[in-house]
Structure formats: structure tokens, C-alpha cells
């Protein structure tokens, strides 16, 4: 029998408790009667993966397992998802098992990125859990001969008015949950939430603070060997000579792999692999070619490269005319994800099936890339997500996974652990793209913005795999796979143009996206993508305009903003900061404010900052930052606060210190000495995050909403402190000092 057992759910729900199990033909036929009027899709990732048992399984012993295609990357998603499932299933939080991104076990939810995990997976699991609970109640109603509305659930048990109880595990029959989700679920009333909305401690933290095996770096498979790659010294370098004989004789060395420009060594012990890597690196002779642009003139570089130009927003109202016009250009350098732990992966080829344990953000697309590189069918490749160090976007994770797979193929049966070195992560990760924005705006006689012009120049913000050509190993092997042509990420999410369209209401506005296909420096997705620089630019320029209008920055923003939720976060942050119109900061200090709604469709965030500037040295110091955030229904308030605190500090580090450096041939920022980031001496005195909860409203996702506002709020505070406007990131002490002295 090919047809699966499918519960006729409509009849269950309509039929007053009669559970009818019917046999149904496979999907294509089953769907046919509905073909004329396409049924509304269930929400979140249920739309693509509709079967309830893809998300939730209930075993006869009562064990409940929840499956998410998203991955824990330090953002706390495991805990939040588990809270959602526990709430809607009505089971104790700790009783649930959670399986995350694994090509053999979970739904394909693409990448864990874009602040989309709660919107996609959280919503899917919330609805799946509610529908599973309904099915269990319906089954209990049938068995107990009680109306469904008279049954209640509690701690994994259905309870009848007369006290009879049936545990979920006793109720579930083999295929009972193998049904497609309905478009609508009977979700709980947020007022009754017991687990959602609580600051439940993160499930992953205990192991992390007691030396448990918490990361892929801590995985030890039986007989596991250690590999290191020797990367070319620069982009496009060719290996012209490499005598591997001496390296092969080194203690512990199992194999040296040379495949075109791909060089690697495998040894029994980790430090043996490192020593062999050093020897192999010394033995390799490369032909390098200069091809990098001028690092100190990115403005000219980016604006002179060929671009595909599109007007992404236009609004005209001839009745509004400007009196005073200003223009400004802002730049952002290439910036590094800067993961503290360099990328790592373990791969093992057994019986022509490749398994890769990886901290990639996208096990399914990465599998497609690795399968293509190895010329294997995708079904023979399995990717399992294991947590790594925080990635903040597309760092070396996917490349390390491909490296490990290419190496493990040469040693069938053996588990091979590939660990990148610090200089490899810094030198080879795909950076956050450099960007240029050019703004021009006019104020009318009343000091309102009459016309707004915004242009942004940028590469793509995603070269994530899907194809093998996105991975270094595939690019470097003897029969290389070409880097796929870059594509802009379409709006409304956008890439280089993410948040380029202003959220404010201007009578005349035009936004142009100059998409630059040529990528002289390897780039891809970094937390917030183009929104970081676009919000930095828009919110800096708003302050420049407020100054021109003689208006208070907070008041000026509110005057141009209709969105009530946006207004609420602005008012909340201003209130928390005790922002007052015309208020002067203490000597050598400045106050700054900024706001954005991430992607103009995710979480709202406003940040007020106080920055101190040492006029002698130019050194800026963030003294305090007060944020307000509206992320819709809050699942874990402490998790949300943790994300925003982190966003502010990370963005502050990007904004004040960070730029990838290079000469005409190679990347020269290859460690923490040459790519300095925030250290404790620059940590502010206080960060405060005010959460505006919106019970029952959709999850908005908040991992990236703070990046842009934090940058602009700090820049505005520096301008307020010094009277000088800095428009080129990073706002280093030297640039500040030069501006003060100018």
C-alpha cells in the first residue's frame, strides 16, 4: 500500500469528537478536489512543510520531540522554540526534546538568518503544537465519549470533567499526526500563557559554563583524525610547486591532499596537523596576482564600478517644495564577522554516504553545494548542524564544511575534523560588503522634509551556498566550479538596499539602488546586511536635517513618522534616556538618537546614546545606551534583551573600530592585532533595553534590528559632542581627532 494513513481532520474538527481515520491517496490526488479554490496556506514554515509530524512527534511513552529546521547560533532559538511548543502543547517546558537543523530529520527551513527564525519556525511550531493538541483532545473525546469543549489539557494529559485522564502518549496512534496543518489554529489566549513571555533560562547555557560538549569543536568521534588546510596566500593565487614528500614523513601525518589549488593535511593528533600545516605551507610556492582595489578610496572604487541601477521607491507631491537643501555621502568599509572560534567541521564518508557535522546556517542549501562539489546525489549527503562559535552571518562555516567533505572523501571511513586557523578565518571569510550612500534632502519653510533622495552602491549581501561555486574548496580544486553570478536579494527584504526605503513619510522621495556585480573582495551576508549602513546613513542624515531645521532630533523624527509602533519605541527610548528637547550633554559628551524598523517589516528599535569624546586624543567612549524594542509577541524577554544588548555592543565595535585591510594583492587584517575589536576598556557603564510586548501579534524577529540604530545613535552622539559630523565608517579616534582639529 502506497497511500499513507491520513486522518480526515476536517471531519474530526467538525464532527463533535468523532475521530475518523480514513485511507487516502498520496498528496497529488488528495489535493485535487481543492484545486479550483486554493486553500489558504498554514502560517510560517508550515506553508512549505505542512505535515504536523514533520514538526512534532509524540511517542507512546509520552516523549514529545519537536523538530525545527533552524539552528542555534547563540541567539537562544532553542529555548524560544521549546517555550512556544510547551505553551501550545500544554506540556512542561523541560519535558520536550528538541531536534534542530539536520537534513535527515528536520524540515528544510533554508537559512537561519535575517531575524526570521521566530517568524518562520516559531510560527510553524506554535501552530503545529496547537493543532496537535486539538487532535489529541479530539481523540480523547472519542474515547471518553465527552464533548471536546468539556476537556482540558494540563502537563501532557487530557482531563475530563469527571476527573478521568488520558496521557498524550496513550492517545496518539501511529499515523495520527501525519496530517497536513490547517490554515488556522486554535491558539491560546496570550493572557493565559504560562511559558511564553517568561524569562526561561537558556537550555544551552549550563553545558557552556561547565565544560560540557557544547560546540562542534568539542565533538570527538571514534578514531577521529585532525585536518588543516593550507589556503593560498591571496585570492586567485595558483599553486605552482609543492614538494609534499617531507611533510608526509612528519610524525602523525596520515595524508597530504593536493587537488589543484586545494591543499590539506591530515594527522592523528591536532597539534601534529598544525605542525604539518606549517611545513606544507612553507613547501608550497604560489603565483599571486594583484587585483584588489584601493582600500583607502572605497568611495571612488564603488561608485566607478559598473552597476545595475534601479529606482526602488518613488513618491512625488509637487505641492511640497524645498527651501534649504543639503547633501552628504556616507561610506562603510568591508567588515569582518570576526567569530571568536574559527570555523570547524567534521566529515565522514561511509559506504558512499557523506555525513558532515557543521555550524552552517543552512544545512539544506549547504548540502546541495557539497553534493555538487563531490558529484554525489544530494540524498547521499547528510548535513547535521552542531553549534559553533557565533557567526553573525555567512562566515567560514560553509567553507569549512566543504573543506572537511573534500578531505574526508580521500579517507573513506575516517571521521575527519577540520579546524580553520585564526588567520584563515580572518583572511578568507566572506566579508560584510563595503557600501556607499549619497543623500540629498530639502526642508520646506516650516522645517519639514519636502524632498528626499537616497542612493546606495553595494555588492550583493548574499553569496551563500546553494551552488558549490560559493565554497572555497570547490573554487580551489583542480576542476574548479566557478563562483555563481551574484544576485541582489529582492525587496521587501533587500540586500544592499535593505532599509534603503525610508520608513518616514516624505512628500517627495526617490531611492536608487546601484547593484555592483563585480566583487573584488570576497563578500556575503553579515548581520543586518545593507541595513547596517543604510540605517546609519538615514539616521545620521535625519540628525543633520534636524540641525538644519533647528529641531530636536527626537521631535523631528516623530514629526515625520506615522507608524504608531515606531512612535511608541521612539517615545519609550527617549523616556528611558530622559531625553529632553534642547538638553545639553555634560562637557565633552554628546547625546544621540536613532530609530529603524528592521527591513521595514521586522522588529522596531530605537536607541539613545551618550558618548564621551576625549578632545586630546579623539577617543570616543559609549557611556550609556538606552534602547526600546517592539518585536511583536515576546517569547523570552531576557533572550530578547540579550540580543539587543549584544547588537548595541557589536555594532558599536563595527562603528568605532572595524575595517578589513588589504594591499593590492592580499588581505592584511588577519588576526585581532590587525583587526581590533571592542575590548572591556570600552564597554559602556550601562545598557538598558525596554521591551514593548505585543501580546498575540506576530513574532517579528529581533536578532538584527539593533545594528543600524546603534551605529547612527553613536554617530549622532559624537556629532553632538564635537560639533563635527563623521560620515565614513569606522568612526575611529583618528578620524574624530582630525575632525576636531580641522
Amino acid at each position, binding site marked *: 500500500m502506497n497511500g499513507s494513513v491520513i486522518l480526515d481532520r476536517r471531519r474530526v474538527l467538525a464532527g463533535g469528537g468523532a475521530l475518523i481515520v480514513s485511507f487516502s491517496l498520496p498528496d497529488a490526488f488528495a489535493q485535487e478536489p481543492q484545486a479550483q479554490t486554493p486553500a489558504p496556506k498554514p502560517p510560517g514554515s508550515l506553508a512549505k512543510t505542512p505535515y504536523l509530524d514533520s514538526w512534532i512527534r509524540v511517542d507512546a511513552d509520552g516523549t514529545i520531540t519537536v523538530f525545527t529546521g533552524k539552528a542555534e547560533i*547563540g541567539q537562544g532559538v532553542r529555548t524560544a522554540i521549546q517555550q512556544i511548543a510547551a505553551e501550545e502543547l500544554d506540556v512542561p517546558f523541560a519535558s520536550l526534546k528538541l531536534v534542530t537543523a539536520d537534513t535527515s530529520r528536520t524540515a528544510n527551513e533554508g537559512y537561519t538568518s535575517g531575524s526570521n527564525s521566530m517568524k518562520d519556525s516559531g510560527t510553524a511550531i506554535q501552530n503545529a503544537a496547537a493543532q496537535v493538541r486539538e487532535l489529541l483532545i479530539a481523540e480523547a473525546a472519542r474515547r471518553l465519549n465527552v464533548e471536546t469543549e468539556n476537556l482540558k489539557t494540563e502537563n501532557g494529559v487530557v482531563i475530563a470533567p469527571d476527573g478521568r485522564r488520558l496521557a498524550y502518549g496513550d492517545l496518539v496512534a501511529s499515523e495520527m499526526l501525519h496530517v497536513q496543518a490547517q490554515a488556522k489554529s486554535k491558539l491560546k489566549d496570550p493572557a493565559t500563557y504560562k511559558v511564553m513571555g517568561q*524569562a526561561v533560562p537558556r537550555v544551552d547555557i549550563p553545558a557552556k559554563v561547565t*565544560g560540557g*560538549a557544547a*560546540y562542534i569543536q568539542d565533538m570527538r568521534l571514534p578514531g577521529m583524525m585532525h585536518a588543516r588546510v593550507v589556503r593560498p596566500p591571496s585570492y586567485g593565487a595558483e599553486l605552482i610547486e609543492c614538494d609534499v614528500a617531507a611533510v608526509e614523513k612528519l610524525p602523525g601525518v596520515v595524508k597530504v591532499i593536493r587537488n589543484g589549488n586545494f591543499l590539506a593535511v591530515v594527522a592523528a593528533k591536532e597539534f601534529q596537523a598544525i605542525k604539518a600545516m606549517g611545513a606544507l605551507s612553507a613547501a608550497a610556492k604560489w603565483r599571486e596576482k594583484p587585483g584588489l582595489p584601493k582600500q583607502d578610496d572605497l568611495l571612488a572604487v564603488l561608485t566607478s564600478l559598473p552597476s545595475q541601477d534601479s529606482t526602488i521607491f518613488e513618491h512625488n507631491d509637487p505641492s511640497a517644495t524645498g527651501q534649504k537643501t543639503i547633501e552628504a555621502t556616507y561610506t562603510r568599509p568591508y567588515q569582518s564577522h570576526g567569530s*571568536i572560534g574559527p570555523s570547524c567541521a567534521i566529515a565522514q564518508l561511509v559506504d558512499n554516504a557523506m555525513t558532515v557535522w557543521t555550524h552552517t546556517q543552512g544545512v539544506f542549501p549547504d548540502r546541495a553545494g557539497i553534493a555538487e562539489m563531490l558529484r554525489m546525489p544530494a540524498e547521499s549527503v547528510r548535513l547535521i548542524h552542531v553549534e559553533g562559535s557565533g557567526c553573525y552571518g555567512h562566515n567560514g562555516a560553509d567553507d569549512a564544511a566543504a573543506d572537511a567533505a573534500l578531505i574526508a572523501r580521500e579517507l573513506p571511513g575516517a571521521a575527519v575534523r577540520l579546524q580553520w586557523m585564526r588567520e584563515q578565518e580572518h583572511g578568507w571569510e566572506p566579508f560584510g560588503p563595503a557600501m556607499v550612500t549619497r543623500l540629498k534632502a530639502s526642508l520646506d519653510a516650516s522645517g519639514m522634509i519636502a524632498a528626499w533622495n537616497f542612493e546606495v552602491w553595494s555588492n550583493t549581501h548574499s553569496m551563500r551556498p546553494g551552488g558549490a561555486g560559493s565554497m572555497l574548496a570547490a573554487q580551489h580544486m583542480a576542476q574548479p566550479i566557478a563562483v555563481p553570478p551574484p544576485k541582489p536579494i529582492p525587496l521587501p527584504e533587500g540586500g544592499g538596499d535593505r532599509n534603503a526605503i525610508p520608513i518616514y513619510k516624505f512628500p517627495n522621495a526617490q531611492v536608487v539602488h546601484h547593484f555592483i556585480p563585480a566583487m573584488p573582495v570576497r563578500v556575503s551576508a553579515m548581520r543586518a546586511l545593507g541595513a547596517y549602513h543604510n540605517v546609519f546613513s538615514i539616521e545620521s542624515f535625519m540628525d543633520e536635517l534636524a540641525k538644519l531645521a533647528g529641531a530636536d532630533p527626537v521631535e523631528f523624527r516623530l514629526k515625520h513618522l506615522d507608524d504608531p509602533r515606531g512612535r511608541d519605541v521612539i517615545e519609550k527610548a527617549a523616556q528611558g534616556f530622559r531625553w529632553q528637547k534642547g538638553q545639553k550633554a555634560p562637557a565633552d559628551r554628546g547625546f544621540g538618537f536613532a530609530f529603524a524598523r528592521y527591513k521595514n517589516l521586522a522588529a522596531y528599535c530605537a536607541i539613545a546614546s551618550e558618548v564621551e569624546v576625549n578632545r586630546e586624543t579623539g577617543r570616543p567612549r559609549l557611556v550609556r545606551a538606552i534602547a526600546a524594542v517592539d518585536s511583536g509577541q515576546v517569547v523570552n524577554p531576557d533572550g530578547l534583551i540579550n540580543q539587543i544588548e*549584544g547588537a548595541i555592543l557589536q555594532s558599536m565595535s563595527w562603528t568605532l573600530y572595524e575595517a578589513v585591510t588589504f594591499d593590492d594583492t592580499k588581505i592584511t587584517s588577519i588576526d*585581532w*592585532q590587525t583587526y581590533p575589536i571592542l575590548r*572591556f576598556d570600552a564597554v559602556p557603564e550601562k545598557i538598558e533595553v525596554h521591551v514593548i510586548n505585543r501580546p498575540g501579534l506576530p513574532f517579528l524577529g529581533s536578532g538584527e534590528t539593533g545594528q543600524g540604530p546603534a551605529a547612527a545613535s553613536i554617530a549622532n552622539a559624537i556629532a553632538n559632542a564635537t560639533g563635527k559630523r563623521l560620515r565614513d565608517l569606522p568612526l575611529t579616534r583618528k578620524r574624530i581627532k582630525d575632525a576636531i582639529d580641522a
Partner: protein
Amino acid sequence: MMSLKVNGRDHQVDADPDTPLLYVLRDELKLNAAKFGCGLGQCGSCTVMVDGKAVLSCVTPLLLLEGRQVTTLEGLGTLDAPAPIQRAFMEEQAAQCGYCIAGMMMRAQALLQKNPKPTDEQIRAELQPNLCRCGTHMRILRAVHRAARLMDAAALSSTTRGSAR
């Protein structure tokens, strides 16, 4: 073979004397807490204690450790019986990805053993060598303050118990 004392136990280690302590801990002794971050002594994620002092295990060769006492995060407490510093980091939820946290905790532990009541400035100064990329710094600082209070309370209660006998 070299002998090495880690978390109160003697180990015979089959590694070259130039092997950095980090790889001995991770590879030979199968300990997880000390992390590889840079191998250059720049980030602090490999921090452990040697004779009570915070040391960067990625740049400390095995040959320098003969007769010394090495303590890793595993040696402070366990999941079931966490040390004050571990309790403090859990209670403050002082981690995002957490990769840097074990190193932070070891450096803070070394500080608190030497100076049980550090000021905020002293904690910041002490933690300067350790990098965190997630931006968990505010929570780390709170957790170290909390650990100091917990250790103080523990010391106090053991003194009280002692005098009652």
C-alpha cells in the same frame, strides 16, 4: 611521556614538549572548556589557571608546566554541583554563543581568588585580554560581581559553620 597535573589529578601525557597546553587539554585529556580562538594569545578563549594565575593555554608549551597545577573550568564545578562562578554565569544568563565564556570565567576566577571584592574597574581591567564578539560584556561584568558575592557568602557560611562547632 610528560606528567601534568590538571584539576588535581596527575596525567601522563604522550605529547611533544613544545605542544601548547591547549592541545594537551583538548586532545589528550578530552576536556572541552578551554577553547581554540586564535592560537596567538590575542583573544583569551583558551584561558585556564596555572598555580592560581590566568594563563593563555594556546601559547603555553607543555614543557613549562612540569610540577605546576593546571585548573580548567571543569575543575571548578559540575552541572550538578556548580562552582559559584558557574552559578553566577547561569543566573545572569551571561552568554550568547558562549564560546568565549569559559575563558572569561577562568580569568575572573583567578581574579576573585586573589581579590575577593574587586571593584568594577578592576574587573574590567582584568578581563581586558579576553574578547567577546556577541556583545555579552554587560552580563559578564554582572556575573563576575555576582560570583564575588556568592563566593563571599559561601566563605561566610563556612566560617559560621566552623565557629558553631
